[in-house]
Every structure is written in structure tokens, then in C-alpha cells.
């Protein structure tokens, strides 16, 4: 334990030093400096994530061996053999060093529960997550923006009120509960869709059969996922549009004789889009994280359900790797948004 805290101090002194090196580089052009600043910030965040991931999951108490030997009496020799195999007999600094060097070289170690390389596990499960949250995210963004724009434009109408109410109701519904209700209605009682999983074991292995089967299994999870998150985009789009709605340039556009539709599409929406860019980029980062709850309810074999299983286990190496993966995808997505801002928002260019 003392080992652990001394290394923890080591980590926290090291991280700012990485930040301190920032001003050292001298970059002349405005964009260069802007880019450097944000890339540097992202790098510091990544390092902090990398270091903290090691310690966060060591806070989960308990001996991993207890899980491996559940319901079975074991001798101390067996215990020792397991410790050695999982690398738990190594001193803390050695484990830390292995973790850092391993993560940087994409050798993420072995999972306690699966006894397989974590890298393989992630590669195996990533497509499932991308399919589910990718589809859900696109639907949610399109739906949210589409309804949000119209609701904002016609603020106070029944269309507006109805959609805001429905959206918020679904937004506040617990995903778990909503998923169960959807399962009960569409799978259990109507029998239209499968309850669970990504495909059935009896589906022929050829591409088209597999694709159709996955599409068939995808409907309910995507429905759940989209229903829960689309309201977020709806509300942001709606309020951004409301900010613009009284602006003089819109009056000017109308005065030019443009149709209402065109005023909205060509003038109001582009200006209202700015705040939502961040949201979309965050969403892109979130595609990797998947939807932990939706995946769990539907036993969708993605990274989210892997994360949940690993927490219950607790499968420390997997948690570490996923935490780093999830955080870095978000960090990189935000970085992407910041870089994009430079091009789409003139104010940033001016303030340099």
C-alpha cells in the first residue's frame, strides 16, 4: 500500500512537468499557436488519464483471486500459482511500469476473467459498439436537429410543446427501465423482434444472412438508445435557434423577400449550429464508449457491456484499458471540435 501512494506522488509531479514544457516551443503563426495550445492540453489530459487509470481501479478493494476461486476451496499453493500467473506477486512499481510501457506499446495485458489479451477483446467488441451507438447517434442527431430546428422556429406552438414534452419525458426515463419496457412490448408480447443479443447462433455464416440478422437484432437497442438521447440534441438546437430568432439579419433576410423556409435554413440554422458542433464531437467520442446501459439491457456484446462485467468482476486490467480508451476518445473528439472552431468561428481567429 505504501508502495502505491509513493508512486501516486510520482505521477502527480510528473504530469504538470509535461505541461510546463508547453511554453517552451515558440510558434509564430496564430493557428500554429492555437493548435499547439490545444494539442498540448489534450496531451496533458491524456497523460493524467493514463496515470490515474492505474490507481483509480486499485481503489476497488478485494483480492481478484477470490473471484477466480468462488465457490471452491483453494489451497495456498493454488492461490500463489494464480497470483503469479496474473502478475499480482510483482511489486506495485513493477506493475505500474509494466502498465505504462504496455499501454504505450498497445500491449494491454491480459484480462483476469477471460484470460486473454485485452487488445484482442477490445478489437473483437469494438465493431458491435460502433454499430449500435453509431447508428443510434446518427439517428439521434438527425432527429434531434430536425425537430429542434422546427420546434425552435415555431416556438410555443403545439408542435413545439408536444415534441419538447415527449423528448424530455424520454430523456428522463431511466434507460434500463425503458429498455425493459421495449423488450416486453416488442419482443415478449408482440414477438416482432428478438429479446436480446446481436445475432442468433443458428444464422448461416454468409455475409448477407449475418448482416440481416444483426440488423434485425439492432432495432430494439437502437430504438432505446435513440429515444433516450435525441432530446439532448433537440433542446440544444431549439435554444440555439431561439437565440438567433430575433436577430436583425433575419429581418433583413425576410425583407429581401426570402421564403420563411429559406430564412431558417440558410440564415438562422448555420448560426445556431455553432454550439451544437461541440455536442456532435462529444457524441463522436461517445460512440466508442457506447451506451453502457443499453448494451447491458440487451446483452449487446460491445465495449459497454464489457465494462460493466469488468466492474462487477472486478477485472482491473480491462477496466484500466477501457478507461484510457474511453477517455482518450473523448479528449481527441473535443480536440477535433476545438480545431474545427478555428475554421468555423471567426471570433476565435480574432482573439488568437
Amino acid at each position: 500500500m505504501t508502495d502505491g501512494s509513493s508512486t501516486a506522488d510520482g505521477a502527480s509531479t510528473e504530469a504538470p512537468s509535461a505541461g510546463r514544457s508547453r511554453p517552451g516551443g515558440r510558434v509564430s503563426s496564430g493557428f500554429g499557436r492555437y493548435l499547439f495550445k490545444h494539442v498540448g492540453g489534450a496531451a496533458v489530459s491524456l497523460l493524467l488519464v493514463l496515470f490515474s487509470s492505474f490507481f483509480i481501479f486499485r481503489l476497488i478493494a478485494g483480492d481478484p483471486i477470490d473471484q477466480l476461486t468462488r465457490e471452491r476451496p483453494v489451497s495456498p499453493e493454488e492461490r500463489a500459482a494464480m497470483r503469479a500467473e496474473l502478475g499480482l506477486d510483482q511489486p506495485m512499481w513493477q506493475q505500474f511500469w509494466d502498465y505504462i510501457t504496455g499501454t504505450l506499446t498497445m500491449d494491454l495485458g491480459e484480462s483476469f476473467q477471460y484470460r486473454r489479451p485485452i487488445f484482442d477483446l477490445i478489437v473483437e467488441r469494438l465493431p458491435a459498439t460502433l454499430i449500435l451507438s453509431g447508428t443510434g447517434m446518427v439517428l439521434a442527431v438527425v432527429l434531434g436537429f430536425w425537430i429542434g430546428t422546427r420546434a425552435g422556429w415555431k416556438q410555443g406552438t403545439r408542435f413545439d410543446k408536444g415534441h419538447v414534452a415527449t423528448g424530455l419525458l424520454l430523456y428522463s426515463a431511466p434507460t434500463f427501465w425503458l429498455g425493459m419496457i421495449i423488450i416486453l412490448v416488442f419482443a415478449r408480447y408482440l414477438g416482432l423482434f428478438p429479446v436480446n443479443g446481436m445475432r442468433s447462433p443458428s444464422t448461416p455464416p454468409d455475409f448477407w444472412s449475418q448482416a440481416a440478422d444483426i440488423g434485425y437484432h439492432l432495432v430494439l437497442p437502437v430504438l432505446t438508445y435513440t429515444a433516450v438521447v435525441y432530446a439532448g440534441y433537440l433542446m440544444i438546437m431549439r435554444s440555439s435557434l431561439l437565440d438567433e430568432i430575433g436577430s436583425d439579419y433575419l429581418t433583413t433576410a425576410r425583407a429581401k423577400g426570402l421564403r420563411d423556409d429559406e430564412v431558417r435554413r440558410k440564415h438562422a440554422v448555420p448560426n445556431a449550429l455553432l454550439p451544437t458542433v461541440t455536442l456532435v464531437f462529444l457524441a463522436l467520442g461517445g460512440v466508442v464508449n457506447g451506451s453502457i446501459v443499453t448494451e447491458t439491457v440487451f446483452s449487446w456484446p460491445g465495449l459497454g457491456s464489457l465494462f460493466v462485467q469488468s466492474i462487477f468482476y472486478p477485472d482491473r486490467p480491462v477496466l484500466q484499458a477501457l478507461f484510457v480508451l474511453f477517455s482518450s476518445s473523448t479528449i481527441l473528439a473535443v480536440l477535433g471540435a476545438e480545431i474545427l472552431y478555428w475554421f468555423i468561428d471567426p471570433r476565435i481567429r480574432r482573439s488568437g
Partner: protein
Amino acid sequence: MNPHALMRRCLSAAAALLLSAGALAVAAPSAAAQENDTDSLLIATDQEVDTFNPFKRRFVITYNTSLMTYETLVRMGADYEPEPGLATEWEESEDGLTWTFTIREGVEWSDGEPLTAQDVAYTYGLLIENQAIRDWNIDFAGNLVSAEAPDDTTFVLTLAQPSPWDVLTREVFVVPEHVWSTYPDPSADDANQLPLVGSGPFQVTEYETGEFITLEANEGYWDGAPGFDEVVFDYYEESDAAVAALEAGEVDIVSGLNPAQIGALEGQDGITVNNAQGRRYVSLTINYNSVTKDGTEFGDGHPALKDPIVRQAMHMAIDKQELVDTVLDGNGQPATSIIPEIFEQYHWDGGDAVLDFDIEAANALLDEAGYVRGDDGIRTMPGTGEPLSFRFYQHADSTDYATIAQFVSEWWAELGLEITPEAIEQGTLNDLAYLGEFDIAFSGWGVGPNPTEQLGMHTCAVLPTLTDGTERSSENNYCNAEFDALHEQQKVESDPEARAELVREQQRLMYEDTPVIYLYYQNVLEAYNSDKITGMTMQPSEGGMITGQQGYAWAYVTAQPADAEDEGGTPMWVWIAVAAAVVVVAAGAIVFVLQRRKTADERE
């Protein structure tokens, strides 16, 4: 744009979609029937595969796949009696050190090669010579001296110490030498590659993490080909989803249910609920003897707990039947000892020695022993005057334990004990328990058919040698020389009845010493699709369980497909519905765009 018009359009498009989907759904069953002529037995599971290596598996799921893929020399019968498996007969030498098995003739591996005594000798040889495999199985392998096959049907095993029950009940899964000898490291977790080659009724052929494990029937199985063509373990992370899948006919066997789920399933057409005696006990461990082998005390258990009178009084103040009724909804039995009722040959039911629930008598016991009540009603220890104030730890993830803790705390409060219940996360609780830093804590184990395993966790021999709580071999640091003597005797007693007598005597001793209070034995709650499956052999055969069988997969091997329609694969209507949806959406979009164009001018 007029919002009402938009709403109407959206609604009519949605209605069109639903109508077409609905119409197709009606037509679905007829289209689905043609697809599939494989009889699959689908079992819901939520546990991941650690390794298919039968020497190293740790999880219940891989125990089950090993049990079906491979076989043992001696099989565990449906009523937990040893019966011939790969060995047709066996003989123990006079000194108990040499065992001679006759290996069944005509058995083939699933790849068609013959199984001989050489394969058996190779398998036991791995336990003796492969260091890693030996370490993993040291409690059994440490006692093995040699494994030889003088001819194709004879296998001779030599032991260091007599140990008949370990030899008969220890599951050593016999592996094919012609396959395993080609593996670079037979002890590796990924040693054996799919499809597995075994001699059992089903072999693992396919595994997708988090999705399914498929086992194909061994058509040439020496004991007759199984009724189903394949067994599939299908992943359901949520048990409510698994129940819905059972109701929808997507999965055939669901286990680990709670009383509410059982209640909802009971009486449904085509679903049979199996409420069977279980192998699991729930108990309260009392920290009365945190001491190492050489006598060093550790931890901070309350000194009053060292007094057996206090422990017995606490035991008497628990109404176990009430706990079964309220916590388990009646699905269990009050417990007396470490061996559950399901193993009736070994279970000790207490007879006249059972302490009945009697708070008054318990109070009298404490009064007599000099634990007087203070002004606040809390008893104090004679001499030191320390109040009887105990920490009571429960696992935070169990609502059952929370209810029990509430009941028991109230009963104990009536004894004049001050109880502080606390819910603690499982890992932390284990750490504290093995460090001896608690007073009373919950525990529970699933018990196997060989009582030596559980009893062995209560001998002086497994007391810790260190005080850091890392060894974790002793369940509660129980140490009683008389108990140990009985334990050594029962381990070598070949006569089943004489052995059972010794085992019962061990349980009686533990009941008197009360290091642990056994609360109840929990039933196994499971349900299956009885329209699809018939003829499953339960374990035990009368009123026994389906999942959680030991020593042989009786239920899955004996299950026969009843004639009911098959469902599986992607129904034909999905293809049609997808096409229809695309058409509807495309048409809707075109109409929408056209309308917009047309009315745009009018709207201004």
C-alpha cells in the same frame, strides 16, 4: 410550415409502417418454420469463459462445458453416488494406495480415434509431471505418485496417502493424448483449440465472447447419442431479459431466478418452473478465534465472542424458519450445518440437539453466565465490564442479506446486545473478514458432493501462518482437535455409511462450538420450456435441479426434443419488412419533398 399538417404526415407514415410490419408479423410463423432442422437446446447464461482448459477452469460455465466435452473415470450419479464412467470397474488395494481401473472398451474420441488406458495415464501424468497443472490442482495432485497403463484397458494409479473419496469424486477430465501431446504447453489457458476433441456427449465447437457457446452432440457417444443436436449457452446479462426470452420462446432453460420471477412464470402455458433443493448455504461467521497456526492473535474481534455461551445464545435468538419465509419466500430450508439437506446421506439434521428459537432461554443463558444488563439495557462482560457491542457486516450487493441483517439485529437487541449492521462492498468485506477485523459477517458457499472440501476449510491444518489475511484457506479459523481426528478418519473410510457417520459427527461438533451460524439452504429457482423439452434427469433424481448439476450433465444429455415448432435464425418476414420499410420511407420522403415544393409559396 403548418405543424398540424406535418404531424398528420408523420403519423400517417408511421401508421403505414406499423401496418405493413404488423401484416408481415402475422405471416411470420409460416415463413420461419422452413429454416431450421437442427434441434438446439438453448440455455441462458451470464458468465464468461475463462478457459476451456479442463485442468485450469475456475468458473461454473466452463465447469459445465468441460463436463459435457470430457469425461471422468467415475461418474457422479443422479443421486450423487459414484457410478461407472470411462472406467467400468475399479479396485482399491488393501493399503488404499493403489487403484486399478478397468477402462471401457470401444469408446471413441469425437474425432474417431479410439480411447485407451494410455490416454488416461497421459491425463493423470499431466497432474503429476506438469508443474503448473500440478500447482493448480495441488490438493489432489500432491497425493499422486504414479499413473500407468500396463495395457489398453487397465489403468493403475498410485497414491502417497489413502484417499478413496478424492479418487472417486475428484473430476479429472480425461483428454486425448494424440491431440494434447501436440500442444506446446498443456497448462496454458488457450492450450486446447476449438473445436474441442473429447469423449463426452457434447463438444464445444464455437464460442463468441458475450454472445454464445455452441456444443455439438457426439453422435458416436458410447452411452447413446444425446436427444438434442446441439447445446447452446446464450448470453443474457439481465435475468429479467432472460425471463422475457423464455416467455417468447427464444431460450429454453433459465436459472438463478428470484421468487418474484418464479411467481410470474408459474402457471404459464408451456413453461415449467423447477423449484429444487439447492447446494448453497447462507451463514453468519463469528470472529471468535483470529489466531495463526503458531498462536499469534490478530484482528480486533470482540472478546465476548470467544465465549461459546454467547455464541449459542445468539444462535438461539435466530428464527431461521422466519428468515426462510420472509427472505426466500419459503424457497429454502432452515439450516443446521455446513452440508445442505440435498446431500441427505451426509447431512446432519440436528435431531434432539437442535437449539430451538427461544429468546427467553437465550437471555437466561447470558444472565447465568454473568453478562448483566447496564442501565441502557446493553449487557456487559463480567470482569472487564465491556459492553456487548458488535459490528455486523453484510455484503452491500445483496438485498436478501440486508433483510436478514434487519431481522437478526432486532432479535439480538432483545438479548441486550448492541448491534451495528453495516453494508460493505464484497471485496472489502472479504479483506476485513480474513484480517479478522469484524465481529459478525455474512458468508455463503455452494457445497459439492464430496463433503471433504467444505469440512477441510475448518481444520487446524489450514489456519493462517501469517496475519496479513492473504492465505484465505480457513473459513473462520475454526480449530478443534477432535474435529480434525474425525476428518482424517472420514477421508480414508471406504465404507460409505461409516464415513457418513463420521461426517455427521463432525457437523455435530461444529454445531456445539458455533463458530458459524448456518441460517438456511437456498433453493435453486429455474424454469424451462416444457413444450420443447421432455425427459430431463434431475439431480437428485427426485425434485432435483437442472443447472448446477455435478459430476455429469444428466439434464442436458437426457433432454429430448418434444415436437414443437422450431424458431431460430432470421425469420423471412424480416427481409420483407426491411424491404417494405425502405420502400415506405423512400416513398414518404419523395411525397414530402414534392409537397414542400408545391406549398412553399402558398405558405408565405
